[in-house]
């Protein structure tokens, strides 16, 4: 047996988390919701892939965007989808959006002492037909909002959204109050501008942009007719309608 008495003590450790960059964003309208994310996945200064979706269709009226540690994010989405399938089998209907939000809270808090290293944004259509966005912290604290940005470039995007969606620091002309909700074309333009801006100034954002649009039942789809790169994902003819719009972002 070799003599090891003179050797220095060695320390090893395993760090179970990584930060994979990227940014997600969701904006609610009166009767629609837009949920978007870039498709770059990186580790440090290396790009692992230019197409790794961060936005996922959960039901015909709910979309979940997951940002942070990609492995945790993918596993979390998988488990949420599994719980939603069980719900369908038990209740013969889709889980409503506000119930999915509460489910996500419970699932995140269940991992309170070894959390999923992710920020979640849930978007879709509520039972009353209104557009809704729910944002979560990694351990399940959540809130319903009109808009939210999360991820690597959230500090760049969120103040822009405060200004353009909530009209913060803007005074309306007398007798013309600021709108509570914006029309779909305006929202799409703001989402695209937010991501092109974030791509310009943040190295972890870029490559591609995926925007999910959920429209409440009976709503006109006219505003999406002339949008480039739109693809319909609707499964049922008589329900809410879902679309995905794919755009290129700068790859440098």
């Amino acid at each position, binding site marked *: 047996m070799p003599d090891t008495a003179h050797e220095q003590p060695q320390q090893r450790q395993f760090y179970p988390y990584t930060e994979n960059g990227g940014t997600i964003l969701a904006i609610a309208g009166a009767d629609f919701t837009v949920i978007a994310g870039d498709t770059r996945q990186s580790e440090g200064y290396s790009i692992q892939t230019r197409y790794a979706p961060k936005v996922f269709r959960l039901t015909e009226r709910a979309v979940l965007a997951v940002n942070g540690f990609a492995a945790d994010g993918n596993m979390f989405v998988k488990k949420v989808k599994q719980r939603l399938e069980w719900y369908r089998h038990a209740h013969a209907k889709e889980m409503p959006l506000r119930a999915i939000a509460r489910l996500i809270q419970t699932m995140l808090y269940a991992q309170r002492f070894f959390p999923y290293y992710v920020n979640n944004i849930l978007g879709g259509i509520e039972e009353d037909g209104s557009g809704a966005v729910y944002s979560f912290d990694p351990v399940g604290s959540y809130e319903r909002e009109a808009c939210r940005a999360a991820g690597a470039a959230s*500090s760049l995007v*969120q*103040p822009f959204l*405060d200004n*353009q969606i909530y009209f913060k620091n803007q005074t309306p002309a007398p007798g013309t109050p600021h709108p509570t909700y914006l029309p779909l074309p305006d929202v799409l333009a703001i989402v695209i501008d937010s991501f092109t801006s974030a791509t310009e100034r943040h190295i972890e954002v870029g490559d591609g942009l995926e925007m999910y649009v959920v429209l409440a039942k009976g709503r006109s789809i006219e505003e999406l007719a002339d949008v480039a790169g739109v693809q319909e994902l609707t499964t049922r003819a008589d329900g809410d309608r879902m679309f995905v719009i794919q755009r290129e972002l700068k790859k440098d």
Partner: protein
Amino acid sequence: MSIMEYNGGSVIAMVGKDCVAIASDLRLGNQALGIASDFEKIFPMTDRVYLGLPGLATDVTTLREQFRYRLNMYTIKEEREIEPETFAHLVSSTLYERRFGPYFIEPVMAGLQRLPNGGYKPFIAATDLIGCINFAKDFVVAGTASSKLFGVAEGLWEPDLEPEDLFETIAQTLLNAVDRDAYSGWGAVVHVITKDKAIKRVLKGRMD
């Protein structure tokens, strides 16, 4: 504890059509504690050159006096006022002199450069704390809200803004950025510089 975030504060400068603007918040803090809401960080160096000094407050005062002295020496020697580009190099060399024990300031400059034909060219620049110059063509930012300023400015700024539109753009950029930064805010000040006048406007902002 980061020295750059000890007192808080942010500055931004933008180029417009035959004009420039430079703006800052008015907060002076001691880490999370607010101390004053009238702490200006932007100083006129000449009629057409303005300097913003976000960073450690004690160095704001020191550098302001340092530049006042160096500028007076330059004006006496050269018998003319300094041009913005020359001033940027003066700032750079002043900071690099302290390469291994720097002033904790990231200066931002805005001015109008006199051309041989008698006209003026908008000029903005910023440096890091040891004087590495960034001659940007659109906008420059510095301070504790810099990442927020980058995000909003990238979304709002466009080329060839007239002085009034440039004022609105820089004011909205600053106000919305500092509202998401705990170390910046508590009011703001905007300077718009054109060839025949420099306008200073003090803005109200969120006081939380």
